[in-house]
């Protein structure tokens, strides 16, 4: 049996990878939704939030259909020699998709709170949109982006439904904390399951405690 802390480490690493994966896309989408009017805006808005409302298992099934060797994208990737389903990459992708709505919604609120006059003034002074974004919008909205990333990371840590469908429960390869607890419970290995539950409590406690400390320090 793989050690409990190894599983914990794997889960945290995958969640961190998912957060890094969702940040660029999430921040861009959040900014577009907050600041730009474009055709299909409400469609994008709804699509991004879909994983928040759909059963995670349904999201997992969609990912499987898309990414499996017989799927639309999976077939292409296979020809390139890239395997996703039932590997750690599937874990990261499932986590990123499930965390994305939380990141986008939180970051978007942050971008909306930035006084748009600063952005307009910069534009009249000739700054290109990318410079306005990186020197004004993003720094001013940073606390919300960070909060969104923390939320997305937290959601990724606990992801279960989509992960078990698209990544399975392969010991030492795709077994995250949530999936391992489920597998151990299902197969009657209660002692191992309880050990992992305790590990999850420790991780959740440390994460929440440090997030609160961060907020306190900011307020002080």
């Amino acid at each position, binding site marked *: 049996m793989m050690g409990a802390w190894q599983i914990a480490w794997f889960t945290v690493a995958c969640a961190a990878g998912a957060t890094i994966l969702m940040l660029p896309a999430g921040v861009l989408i959040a900014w577009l939704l907050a600041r730009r009017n474009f055709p299909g805006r409400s469609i994008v808005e709804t699509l991004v939030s879909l994983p928040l409302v759909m059963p995670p298992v349904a999201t997992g099934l969609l990912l499987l259909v898309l990414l499996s060797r*017989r799927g639309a994208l999976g077939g292409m990737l296979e020809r390139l020699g890239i395997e996703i389903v039932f590997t750690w990459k599937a874990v990261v992708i499932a986590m990123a998709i499930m965390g994305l709505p939380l990141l986008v919604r939180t970051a978007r609120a942050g971008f909306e709170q930035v006084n748009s006059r600063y952005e307009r003034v910069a534009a009249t002074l000739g700054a290109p949109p990318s410079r306005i974004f990186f020197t004004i919008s993003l720094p001013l909205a940073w606390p919300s982006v960070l909060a969104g990333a923390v939320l997305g990371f937290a959601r990724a840590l606990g992801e279960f439904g989509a992960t078990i469908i698209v990544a*399975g*429960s392969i010991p030492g390869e795709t077994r995250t904390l949530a999936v391992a607890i489920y*597998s151990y419970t*299902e*197969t*009657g290995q209660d002692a191992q399951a309880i050990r992992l539950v305790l590990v999850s409590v420790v991780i959740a406690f440390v994460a929440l405690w440090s997030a609160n400390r961060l907020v306190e320090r900011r307020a002080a």
Partner: protein
Amino acid sequence: MRPALILLLVLGSDPFQLPAPAPITVSAAVSLTDALTAAAGEYAGGGRGAIRFNFAASNVLARQIVNGAPVDLFISADEAQMDVVGQAGLIQEGSRVDLLSNQLAVVVPNDRPRTFGSIKDLADPAFRRIAIGDPAAVPAGVYAKQYLEKEGLWQAVASRIVPAGSVRAALTAAESGAVDAAIVYRTDARVALKATVAWVVPTDRGPRIVYPAAIVKASAHLTETQRFLDFLRGASAARVFERAGFTVIPTAPR
């Protein structure tokens, strides 16, 4: 006055109102899904009462029953999981019977069909991922591991095993192409739409696969449940099971 009247109307026309006799709840191994549903259809068609099914991997069902799930009849895919319930003292005395037998089969996605000359072909590096039921408890996985160990193949393929939550989950993995092969029951292979059989494990080489059935002691419908179990051991149910590929075990109660 008014709300009370509406309430009365709603309650009086309850579309979910249960017909007599009350349906019995059967927790059965997921590999029995198609055959048992067909058999229960014949049973209910004869006006003998409705059956509610709860299909899952037998180890999951056993745990549900041990934890107090209101189940009338349990049909497991192996003796070990029936023993779990038996050792918890939850089986109606003398009701346990061996109902069916089955065989293992190796299936592959049907866009890459193959036929094995022997099970040794499974060691081919082309099979990078092989799904089986979780060998820690899922009966199909326990059987598959036993078989591969007996054939001296377990060491060679252990690192390529993808443990699945049930035998049907292993089959689905093969059908989606997510794995290159899966070891399932011959009966599962028959209902597969996108996977084909590469190898059927001969009965004299494979593990002895037995589906025991027993009435759960806490059942509130002992008579009705016994009647359904008797039906499952009768000739018309036997035809349904044999059509699905099961072997009916004709033995006296143990």
